[in-house]
């Protein structure tokens, strides 16, 4: 795998000119995004450089403890991000706990499954495999779970009268919320379905492109990509179903009432 072209810092500096051109366009068209564009670009460089250092250390250590710790930190960050992305999340500890818990459960299950069945690295917790796989699953799982929970809560707010009308006719909380639950699960799974059907035709996935640039034969890179797509689909499905059902459990109660008081108040416009 040594047949890739190493990049020098001058190469990167030259490429960064493109960002400066974007910033210039923002100034010319008075978009007022040049500041945030440059800050985002600097953040990206700093964050990725740090990750490079961390991964180098992790990969050389090959310790189950450090690998597990890195995985935990990734899950916690993803959970925080998923909680932030919701318009009307659950209030209190649930806002963070539900998404993070479901993400941890589903991504760990799927990653360990892939490590033990398809990849079988030695040792099985080899961070060179664990960390990138977990990262890709978490990224997609996070989108799915936050979309699912966001659809659930915003639809329950907007369709409250319909849900309560069903409750009033003697429906259980699960029956009354079923149409909203289905809608939430559909929107959670849509991005995964769309990306699977567009992959290879509309877009070349980043991981596969990276492997090909790194010198891996395309046929091998494709196999990895297919494996990862299956893992993403499985992880997102598992995570979204548990998160949405957990969300339904939380926004209703044992008396089969709709408890929208357990949502965060709407953000001021």
């Amino acid at each position: 795998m040594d047949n890739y072209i190493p990049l020098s810092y001058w190469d990167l500096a030259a490429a960064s000119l493109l960002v400066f051109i974007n910033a210039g366009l923002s100034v010319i068209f008075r978009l007022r995004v040049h500041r945030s564009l440059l800050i985002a670009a600097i953040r990206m460089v700093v964050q990725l450089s740090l990750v490079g250092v961390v991964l180098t250390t992790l990969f050389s250590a090959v310790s189950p403890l450090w690998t597990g710790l890195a995985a935990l930190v990734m899950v916690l960050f993803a959970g925080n991000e998923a909680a932030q992305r919701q318009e009307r999340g659950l209030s209190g500890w649930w806002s963070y706990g539900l998404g993070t818990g479901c993400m941890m459960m589903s991504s760990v299950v799927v990653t360990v499954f892939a490590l033990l069945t398809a990849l079988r690295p030695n040792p099985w917790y080899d961070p060179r495999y664990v960390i990138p796989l977990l990262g890709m699953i978490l990224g997609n799982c996070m989108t799915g779970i936050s979309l699912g929970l966001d659809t659930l809560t915003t639809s329950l707010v907007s369709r409250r009268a319909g849900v309560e009308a069903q409750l009033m006719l003697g429906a259980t909380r699960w029956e009354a919320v079923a149409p909203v639950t289905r809608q939430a699960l559909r929107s959670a799974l849509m991005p995964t379905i769309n990306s699977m059907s567009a992959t290879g035709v509309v877009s070349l996935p980043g991981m596969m492109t990276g492997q090909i640039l790194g010198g891996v034969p395309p046929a091998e890179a494709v196999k990895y990509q297919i494996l990862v797509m299956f893992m993403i689909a499985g992880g997102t499905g598992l995570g979204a179903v548990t998160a949405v059902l957990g969300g339904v459990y939380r926004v209703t109660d044992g008396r089969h009432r709709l408890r929208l008081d357990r949502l965060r108040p709407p953000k001021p416009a």
Partner: protein
Amino acid sequence: MRGPSGAGKTLLLRAVADLDPNEGLVTLDGRDRSTIAGPEWRRLVGYVPADPGWWANTVGEHFGEWTAALAFVNDLGFSDEAKAWPITRLSTGERLRLALARALIVRPKVLLLDEPTAALDVASVAAVESLINARMRAGLAVLWVTHDAEQAKRVAHRHLVVEAGQVREEAPEWTIISP
């Protein structure tokens, strides 16, 4: 039940229906509400809000079996074709009458009505009143919120007034001062 807007009439109906967290003792035929599961309680105690909710696109989807619903629906002035009507095309009055039919099919023992005739024309008001009256004669208990003092006089056996969160009973022979 009457009272100024914001006095807590709707809140009281919702609390009796057990739609919001609430405190206090509610019994039906001597049975404590807390011993009855939520869904079962709400089949015994129906509630029709002022602006009824819908969860599907057409009228028929809101009724389990249309043939069984027909008797109730016809009583309220709808033809058999109403089954395919889209909810969005219904007038406020039609929505209210359908919500009423929907609640009655479950055969509740108590019906909580939140201004059911506020948006209806005179003929529809009479139809709803006579339908509810017939049900009351058959043993249905109704807690009816209205702003219409004349209506209260026509339908009520007991008069409650809600003011600033307090409920008090008015003597049945109270007089109405028309504006």
